[in-house]
């Protein structure tokens, strides 16, 4: 688009000013509404507990949550570990299972999507295992691998593995025939067509799979820690329940949410870097 802003008349210029000002005013207005609604939500919550509508034994006020959060930063009581230790235990656990799932799942999905015979051989097994939620595997894996980290890492691997395979598989299947034909008519071998075309085209969808896998891994981690753990954020909120400390539960839940959000943003930054050819539309 050519930048021809030099010779436009004054009347057009100031009518654009008006338009721009209106847009800015609307944006400010929306921001105001958002902040007000969040404040109202917090005040209602605070009021509900203070005025006794909800018994403070079961739900604590936001101010209490902040206090406990600050206290938990340094004090291992009451759930036996400082917030930092819980976070690191959980992170170490989730990353082991998650990264293995990505490293094995994405290539497997890509190859399954491209090579027909391999697809027909592997996908039936996959279709049988897929509908069973990873959490249902916890009891069996505890019996096989005990309560330690290997059992939990295996569950997280299962939870993350499925979306990686499916999305990479779909990515390859959706490759437009025209791209494949360009490669074939240039004399590319079957492997070259896969490597130079399908693999690249499927990358954005593979990343969607990696994102979904992260969400699955993170929630399965919490489940496995709820069931059997000695530390970690899931364990912390479980302790909060048994010690009837709603503030500890809520601090644990918020930390899980915040860390989950951070991991997701880091991942999309990596995606933007790797798949820089995709239009930002």
């Amino acid at each position, binding site marked *: 688009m050519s930048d021809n802003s030099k010779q436009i008349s004054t009347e057009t210029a100031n009518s654009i000013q008006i338009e721009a000002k209106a847009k800015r005013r609307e944006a400010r207005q929306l921001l105001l509404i958002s902040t007000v609604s969040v404040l109202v939500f917090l005040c209602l919550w605070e009021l509900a507990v203070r005025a006794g509508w909800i018994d403070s034994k079961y739900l604590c006020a936001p101010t209490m949550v902040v206090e406990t959060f600050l206290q938990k930063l340094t004090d291992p009581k009451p759930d036996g570990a400082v917030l930092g230790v819980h976070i690191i235990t959980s992170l170490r656990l989730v990353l082991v299972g998650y990264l293995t799932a990505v490293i094995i799942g994405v290539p497997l999905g890509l190859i399954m999507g491209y090579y027909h015979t391999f697809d027909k051989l592997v996908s039936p097994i996959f279709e049988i295992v897929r509908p069973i939620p990873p959490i249902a595997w916890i009891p069996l894996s505890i019996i096989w691998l005990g309560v330690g980290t290997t059992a939990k890492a295996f569950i997280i691997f299962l939870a993350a593995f499925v979306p990686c395979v499916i999305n990479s598989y779909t990515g390859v299947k959706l490759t437009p025939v025209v791209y494949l034909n360009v490669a074939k008519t240039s004399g590319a071998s079957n492997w*070259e067509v896969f490597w130079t075309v399908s693999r690249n085209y499927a990358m954005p969808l593979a990343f969607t799979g990696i994102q979904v896998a992260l969400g699955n891994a993170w929630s399965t981690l919490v489940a496995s820690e709820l069931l059997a753990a000695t530390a970690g954020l899931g364990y912390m909120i479980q302790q909060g329940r048994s010690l009837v400390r709603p503030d500890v539960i809520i601090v644990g839940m918020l930390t899980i949410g915040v860390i989950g959000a951070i991991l997701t943003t880091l991942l999309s930054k990596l995606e933007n870097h790797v*798949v820089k050819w995709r239009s930002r539309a």
Partner: protein
Amino acid sequence: MENQEIKVQVNHLTKRFGDLLVLNDISFNIKKGEFVCIVGPTGCGKTTFLNLLTRLIDPTEGEILIDGEPADPKKHSISFVFQEPSAFPWLTAQQNIEYGLRIKKKSSEEIAAQSEKIIGLLGLEKYRNAYPHEMSVSMEQRVVIGRAFALNPDLLLMDEPYGQMDIKMRYYLEDEVIRLWQATGSTVLFITHNLEEATYLAERVLILSNKPANIKANINVDLPRPRKVSDPEFIKIRKEITDMIKWW
């Protein structure tokens, strides 16, 4: 032009999908370096015909020879410009142009020299590192055509590449493809619905009949270049072709 050796021989080409006969016993020859246009009514099997030539699909009967041997993408270099935009979104303009050369495992000097030449001919020096989503439709199509010519192909097939362009852009691209054809001396087979475009570009026009398609006529267009659309001789040839095609 007669004694030039034959580049492409098509003998009794027939194609049947189940019991639907699409191409019926087509035979013709194309000389080396010739620019042939193929026209025919909508849906008469032109694209099937092209897919057969590039061995994307196998014929039911008949054979296709390039320099006397059965056509094979691995042995011969056949380039194809498809109708819908086919620049690889994950490659820059220059990488797209060099794609075919890399597959054919050409030496890096050869690749660099050839891609520089094509980028020069297309005048895309400023856009060599742009990704397809940063280009206009016409620029992307020019990169795709550059990629096809970069291979110095034995046979270059183009399936209605300028269908969506506005008229001034189409004139520009038609002149550009003629320039590229003259510079590389490749043999070009150009499919189009637009009869004026066929008359403007072709040294010879092959007219396909309705389904099941057969060669209905073979019209030589020996007009000097660059041709003028309103020149009486041009109009006569265009009228001749239109009367054979007009089904509406």
